């Protein structure tokens, strides 16, 4: 029971957040330094302190920050933690890329509102719809800032975007215009807030992002996927077009197949790419699952959604062995590796 622990034991419990290799090296020293800050040398006073005091919130937060930096390792970290760090950084970039593509679509609607594109429907006016467009543009800025290693700008922008998103959802819920509150909140938590928290992986030790592949991915995704889908919707031939979650499932499945082919041909790296795809598959699968109830009125669309989920699961399964390899591969100096 936690009530029977003394201050030292409580602090050691917090330190369990740190990887074992790090605790083996530093734990005793950290405990000694921590207790030095509490104990006065007076036996009675120290006895009360040991029994009743707890690590402060600031101390706990500092250990959590250290644990995040170590577990999502950067240059010089043990192989396993470096792989997790790279995979999380790549997955965050992938989600931010999806957000940015959506932001570009918002830009197209904005251009329509200025009569620059005549064939798009005009966007609705008012404060909250306008805020929605601002959120879309801001995701583009956040993505680009991450790619060009302006981490502080990206973090501040992401926090503002998430704050605005939450405000918008709360407004819709209070106004009674939110069709599926549970779906919307789940989406906000996992697709918006989660990746922003995971941006902690972009710390000082993180190797620089490979800029050009990511920067080119933005217009490529927009031109090759979003524009044709928009054209199909506007021309009234959109019955065959999967919804956003379905498109994400199919697109990611294709990438998984491509990665599996690279692995089989021996051209893949050390499993980090596959680990990244598994993380993205988990997020995308979650997105597909929470949006399925929207089709509750149409069993056919439910079946289509389940088929998309199955395709994604099979494609992701193909890269699992390579992803496992990222945790067991022989250590290699990551000093000059970049994200990718």
């Amino acid at each position, binding site marked *: 029971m936690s009530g029977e622990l003394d201050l030292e034991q409580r602090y050691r419990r917090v330190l369990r957040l740190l990887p074992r290799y790090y605790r083996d090296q530093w734990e005793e020293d950290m405990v*000694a330094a921590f*207790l030095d800050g509490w104990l006065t040398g007076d036996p009675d006073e120290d006895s009360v302190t040991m029994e009743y005091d707890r690590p402060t919130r600031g101390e706990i937060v*500092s250990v959590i920050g250290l644990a995040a930096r170590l577990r999502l390792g950067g240059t010089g970290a043990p192989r396993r933690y470096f792989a997790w760090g790279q995979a999380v950084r790549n997955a965050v970039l992938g989600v931010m890329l999806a957000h940015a593509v959506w932001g570009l679509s918002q830009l197209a609607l904005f251009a329509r509102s200025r009569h620059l594109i005549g064939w798009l429907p005009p966007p609705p006016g008012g404060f909250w719809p306008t805020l929605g467009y601002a959120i879309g543009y801001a995701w583009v800025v956040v993505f680009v800032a991450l790619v060009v290693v302006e981490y502080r700008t990206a973090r501040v922008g992401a926090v503002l975007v998430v704050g605005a998103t939450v405000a918008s959802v709360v407004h819709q819920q209070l106004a009674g215009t939110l069709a599926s509150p549970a779906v919307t909140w789940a989406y906000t938590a996992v697709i918006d807030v989660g990746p922003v928290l995971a941006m902690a992986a972009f710390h000082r030790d993180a190797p620089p992002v490979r800029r050009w592949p990511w920067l080119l991915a933005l217009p490529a995704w927009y031109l090759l996927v979003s524009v044709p889908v928009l054209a199909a919707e506007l021309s009234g031939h959109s019955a065959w077009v999967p919804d956003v979650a379905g498109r994400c499932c199919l697109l990611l499945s294709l990438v998984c197949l491509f990665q599996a082919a690279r692995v089989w041909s021996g051209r893949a790296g050390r499993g980090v790419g596959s680990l990244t795809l598994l993380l993205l598959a988990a997020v995308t699968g979650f997105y597909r699952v929470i949006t399925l109830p929207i089709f509750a009125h149409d069993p056919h669309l439910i079946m289509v959604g389940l088929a998309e989920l199955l395709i994604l699961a099979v494609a992701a399964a193909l890269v699992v062995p390579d992803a496992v390899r990222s945790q067991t591969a022989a250590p290699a100096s990551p000093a000059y590796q970049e994200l990718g």
Partner: protein
Amino acid sequence: MTGQAFFVLTALADGPRHGYGIVREVVELSQGRVKLKIGSLYGVLDRLSADGLIEPDHEEAHDGRLRRYYRLTAGGRRALAEEADLRAASAHVVRARLGLTGPEAAGAAG
């Protein structure tokens, strides 16, 4: 070099110190502006150690626990001196821009 790393190296400049000794010294050196939490301190110590700027000096028993002392390496001393020069040069530029250097400023101050 971060502000925290700069203060930790400075705290070790005049001799070895243990973890909490470094925390106290940094508070004093920074006139209370930098108060290192233990998690932050060991993040900095780990990084400085990996960069070869500090190293363990010795251990002492205290109240049944071992205190590990750290000292600057020659590389750490050099890095600290370079950082101090850099910061002094930056401060000099800022003061010049503000008109706070030279005989005029000295006269105005006097």
